[in-house]
C-alpha cells in the first residue's frame, strides 16, 4: 500500500514538474502574444497607411496582407528568439522588405510585358534596394498614446461619402486597430456582416485613395463634426449595457475618450469637442452603477448615486464650462447648482426659433449640428447629463429644466427617441397628460410601435397613474419586443411592481 502510494506520489511529482515546464513556456508564449496583441492594437492601421503611402502601387489589400503576415511572423519568431528591442521597428522592417520583394516581383512581370521601360525599372530597383538598407533605428515609429498618424487616419475615416456605420467600422479597424471579430462583437453584428462592410469600404478607400490623401486644413474643419459623431458612436457602442463582453465595451468608451482628448490636445477640437467630452465623462461617471449586485441592469432611477464617480463628474463640469454657450452660472462640481434664474435663461442663445434651423440646406444638422454661436446638440445632451449627475435623487431631479433642454434638442430635427425622453421628463415635471399624449402619438409611428422601451415606459407610467391593467398590457407587449435576456429581465422586474 505504502509503495503504491509513494509511486502515485512520484508520478504526480513528475507530472507536476512537466506541467511547470509547460507553464513557463506557456508564460513566455503568453507574454509574446500579449506584446504582439498590444502592438497590433496600437499600430495596425498606422502600418498599413505607412506602407501604403511609401509604396502606393501595393494597393490596400496587399498592404493589409503584408501587415497581417508580419504580425504572424513576429508571433513565431519572438516566441523563439525573444522580443526585440524595437518591436514596431522590427515588424515594420519585415513589412517593408516583403513589400519591396512583392513590388520587385510585380515589376519583373511588368517589364517582361513592356521591355521599353527598362530605364524606369532600374531606377525603381535602385531606390527599392536603397530603402532595404535602412537600419532599424531609422524606422520612424515612436510610442505615443495617439500620434499624428492616428489622427490623420481618423480624419481620413470621416469621409463624407461613407455612411456613419462604415465610418465607425473603419475607424475601429484602422485607428483603434480592432480585429474583425472584436468589431463584430462590439457592434453586435456578424463577422460576415463586418467583412461585407469592410470589403465595400476597402473598394472606396482604394478608388479614392482615402488613406493617401492628406485632408487639407479646410477639410479638417469640415470633417470635425463627422469625427465627433464617430467618436460618440464608438462611445455609445461601448456604453450599451445590453451586449456581453464588458471588458471590450469599457475599452471602447476609453478609446473614444482618448481620441476626443487627442483632438483637443492637438488644437484640432473646438467647443463641440469640449461639450462632447463633458457628455462622455458624465456618462462614464455612472458606468459601474448601471448594474446591480447580481449583474442585473439598473436604470437611472434605481442606481445607487453614491457609486457615481465624483471626480469624473467634476471633470465633466470643467469641460462643459469650457464648451461655453450655455451660460451656466454657479455650476459647482457636485450638487446644489442651478442654472441662472432657475430655468434655462440664456440656454441656446442665438438659436433661431422661427424655423431657420429647420429649413434650408444649412438647416437641421442633426447629431452634429451647431448654431451660429457654436452651440451643438452635444451641449444640450451634456447639460441634461449634468442635471442628472448633480440631482440628489430621481424624484428630486429638475425635470422641468430637463424637459426644456429636450425641447431645444428637438429643434435640431425630428427624433422619436429624443421625443420619448422628452415625454418622460414632462411626466415627472407634472405634465402627465401631455406626456402620455406624446407617447401614444409615438406608438402610432411604424418606427416606434414595436420599440420595447416605449412600451415599457408606457407600462411604467400607467402603473404610476394607477392603471395596473393597462400597465401589464404594455409591459407584456414590451416583453415580446426584445430578444435580449438582460432587457427581458429588466421588464420582468418592473412588472413585479404591479402586484395582483
Amino acid at each position: 500500500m505504502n509503495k503504491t502510494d509513494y509511486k502515485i506520489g512520484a508520478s504526480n511529482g513528475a507530472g507536476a514538474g512537466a506541467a511547470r515546464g509547460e507553464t513557463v513556456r506557456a508564460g513566455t508564449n503568453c507574454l509574446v502574444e500579449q506584446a504582439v496583441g498590444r502592438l497590433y492594437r496600437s499600430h495596425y492601421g498606422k502600418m498599413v497607411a505607412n506602407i501604403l503611402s511609401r509604396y502606393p502601387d501595393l494597393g490596400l489589400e496587399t498592404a493589409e496582407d503584408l501587415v497581417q503576415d508580419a504580425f504572424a511572423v513576429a508571433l513565431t519568431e519572438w516566441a523563439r528568439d525573444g522580443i526585440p528591442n524595437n518591436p514596431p521597428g522590427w515588424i515594420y522592417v519585415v513589412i517593408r522588405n516583403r513589400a519591396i520583394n512583392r513590388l520587385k516581383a510585380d515589376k519583373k512581370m511588368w517589364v517582361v510585358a513592356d521591355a521599353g521601360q527598362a530605364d524606369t525599372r532600374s531606377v525603381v530597383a535602385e531606390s527599392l534596394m536603397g530603402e532595404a538598407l535602412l537600419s532599424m533605428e531609422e524606422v520612424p515609429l515612436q510610442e505615443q498614446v495617439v500620434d499624428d498618424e492616428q489622427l490623420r487616419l481618423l480624419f481620413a475615416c470621416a469621409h463624407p461619402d461613407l455612411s456613419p456605420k462604415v465610418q465607425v467600422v473603419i475607424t475601429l479597424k484602422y485607428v483603434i486597430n480592432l480585429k474583425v471579430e472584436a468589431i463584430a462583437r462590439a457592434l453586435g453584428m456578424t463577422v460576415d456582416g463586418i467583412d461585407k462592410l469592410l470589403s465595400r469600404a476597402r473598394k472606396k478607400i482604394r478608388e479614392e485613395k482615402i488613406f493617401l490623401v492628406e485632408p487639407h486644413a479646410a477639410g479638417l474643419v469640415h470633417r470635425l463634426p463627422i469625427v465627433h459623431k464617430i467618436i460618440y458612436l464608438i462611445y455609445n457602442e461601448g456604453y450599451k449595457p445590453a451586449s456581453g463582453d464588458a471588458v471590450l465595451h469599457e475599452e471602447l468608451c476609453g478609446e473614444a475618450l482618448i481620441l476626443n482628448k487627442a483632438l483637443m490636445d492637438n488644437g484640432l477640437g473646438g467647443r463641440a469637442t469640449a461639450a462632447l467630452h463633458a457628455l462622455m465623462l458624465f456618462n462614464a461617471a455612472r458606468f459601474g452603477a448601471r448594474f446591480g449586485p447580481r449583474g442585473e441592469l439598473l436604470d437611472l432611477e434605481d442606481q445607487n448615486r453614491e457609486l457615481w464617480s465624483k471626480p469624473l463628474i467634476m471633470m465633466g463640469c470643467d469641460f462643459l464650462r469650457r464648451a461655453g454657450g450655455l451660460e451656466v452660472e454657479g455650476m459647482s462640481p457636485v450638487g446644489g447648482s442651478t442654472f441662472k434664474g432657475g430655468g434655462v435663461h440664456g440656454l441656446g442663445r442665438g438659436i433661431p426659433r422661427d424655423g431657420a434651423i429647420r429649413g434650408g440646406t444649412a438647416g437641421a444638422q442633426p447629431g452634429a449640428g451647431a448654431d451660429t454661436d457654436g452651440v451643438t446638440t452635444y451641449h444640450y445632451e451634456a447639460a441634461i447629463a449634468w442635471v442628472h449627475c448633480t440631482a440628489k435623487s430621481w424624484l428630486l431631479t429638475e425635470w422641468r429644466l430637463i424637459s426644456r433642454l429636450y425641447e431645444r434638442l428637438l429643434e435640431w430635427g425630428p427624433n422619436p427617441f429624443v421625443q420619448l425622453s422628452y415625454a418622460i421628463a414632462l411626466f415627472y415635471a407634472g405634465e402627465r397628460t401631455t406626456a402620455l399624449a406624446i407617447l401614444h402619438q409615438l406608438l402610432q409611428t411604424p418606427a416606434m410601435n414595436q420599440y420595447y422601451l416605449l412600451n415599457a415606459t408606457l407600462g411604467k407610467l400607467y402603473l404610476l397613474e394607477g392603471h395596473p391593467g393597462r400597465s401589464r398590457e404594455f409591459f407584456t407587449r414590451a416583453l415580446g419586443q426584445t430578444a435580449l435576456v438582460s432587457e427581458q429581465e429588466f421588464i420582468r422586474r418592473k412588472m413585479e411592481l404591479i402586484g395582483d
Partner: protein
Amino acid sequence: MEKFLLLIREDAEQRAKMTQEEFDRCIQIMGGWVESLAQTGNYISSEPLQHRGKVISKDNIVSDGPFIEAKEAISGYFLIYAENLEQAASIAQTCPLVLAGRLGMEVRPIILFGNE
C-alpha cells in the same frame, strides 16, 4: 446635410405571402435600423405601405396594381438626411433587410428650394 427619399422595393409575391408575425418581425428589425439612423442624426421619417393600391395611367384609366406584372413593388419609404448621394446610398446599404437580401432600395435626392 441634404434630404433623400429611400424607396423600398420588395418582391411583391413574397410580400403578399408574408404572415402577420413575419411582418411584425420585419418592422422590429427596421425599428432597430431606425434607432441607429436616429442616433447618427440621419433619420427624418418612414412608413410602410399596405399591399394594395390603384394605378392611374396617363390617359386617366384606373387599374388595380401595380403588383400583377411587376416583380418588385414599392413597399415603403424612408426620408433621411445625408451629406451627399454617395453617403445616402452607403446608408441604404446598411439596412439589415437589404444586407439580408430581402429588399432593395432606390435612393433619390430631394430638390430643395432656397429663398434667395
